[in-house]
C-alpha cells in the first residue's frame, strides 16, 4: 500500500495554457528566487558573490547566465535563477550585511508573449508599458487586478509576470481574458 502513497510535486499552473494568437500565456519553468534586502555599502560584495551587478536605478534589472536581479525598491531586489541555484548560500558567501529570504515557492511566473502583449497586461494593470517608458529589461512591482505582481520585460514582445503562488490562477484568468480581447 505504501508504494501507492507517493507524493508528486505539482506546480500550481501545471497544464495551464491560454491567451490568443496575439498574446500567448505559458507557465514559466520552476526557478529559484530570493528576496534580497541590503544597504548600499553591501552591493559591491553581493554583486561579486551573485555574479551579476546589482542595479541601483529604479525600474531596471541586470542579468547573466540565466540569473536575473530586478530592482524592486532602493534597498530591495528580487533575484531569479532559472537554473535553480542555491541563491541564499551564494549571497551568504559575500560575507557582508544583507537579508536573503528564499521565495522560490512563494512565487510562480507566467510568460506573456506576442504582438499585443501590452494590451493583455494593461487589461488589469494601469502601468504605461510602451517601449519608451518600459524598455526591454525594465521591471516593476505593481498591481494586476487585486494581485501584487512583478512585471519584467524580457523582450520587446515578452513579459515575465512574477506572481504569488496563491494568486497565480487569478492572475492567469485575468491575463487570459485580456489576451483574448486583444485578438478581437
Amino acid at each position, binding site marked *: 500500500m505504501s508504494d501507492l502513497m507517493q507524493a508528486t510535486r505539482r506546480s500550481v499552473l501545471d497544464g495551464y495554457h491560454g491567451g490568443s494568437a496575439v498574446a500567448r500565456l505559458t507557465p514559466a519553468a520552476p526557478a529559484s528566487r530570493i528576496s534580497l534586502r541590503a544597504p548600499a555599502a553591501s552591493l559591491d560584495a553581493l554583486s561579486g558573490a551573485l555574479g551579476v551587478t546589482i542595479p541601483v536605478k*529604479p525600474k531596471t534589472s541586470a542579468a547573466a547566465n540565466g540569473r536575473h536581479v530586478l530592482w524592486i*525598491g*532602493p534597498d530591495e531586489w528580487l533575484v531569479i535563477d532559472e537554473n535553480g541555484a542555491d541563491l541564499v548560500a551564494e549571497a551568504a558567501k559575500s560575507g557582508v550585511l544583507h537579508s536573503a529570504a528564499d521565495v522560490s515557492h512563494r512565487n510562480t511566473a507566467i510568460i506573456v508573449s506576442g504582438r499585443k502583449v501590452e494590451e493583455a497586461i494593461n487589461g488589469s494593470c*494601469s*502601468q504605461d508599458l510602451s517601449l519608451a517608458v518600459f524598455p526591454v529589461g525594465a521591471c*516593476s512591482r*505593481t498591481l494586476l487586478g487585486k494581485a501584487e505582481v512583478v512585471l519584467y520585460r524580457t523582450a520587446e514582445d515578452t513579459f515575465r509576470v512574477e506572481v504569488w503562488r496563491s494568486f497565480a490562477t487569478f492572475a492567469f484568468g485575468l491575463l487570459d481574458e485580456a489576451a483574448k480581447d486583444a485578438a478581437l
Partner: protein
Amino acid sequence: MLLIYCPYCEEERNELEFRNGGDAHIARPTNIADITDEEFEEYFFIRQNPKGLIFERWRHVHGCGKFFNAARDTVSDRFYMSYKAGEPKPDPATFLNTGNDKGASK
C-alpha cells in the same frame, strides 16, 4: 484615478499602489516616559484635519515599499509635490500659486 509621484521610483503611478500613512512631520517627544497623559494624547491622537493643504506620509506599498511625504490639498485631492522621508518640510510658497496648473506633482 489619481497619479502620485513616488520620489523613490522617480515616476508617477496609479493611486491604487499607495497607502496613506497619516500626518507627516509629527515628532515623537524625546522624553516620552516623562510627559503627562494629556501631552501624550496631544502627540499621539490629536490632528488638525485641515481643509486645504496637508503634509502626509504615503507608502508605495505595491511598488517600492517605501514611505515618503507628500503635500496634498484635502479639498481638490490634488498632489502638489512629494519628497523622500527625512527631507525637511518644504515651504508651501515654493509650490502654491506658481502658475503651473497641470496637476503635475513633481
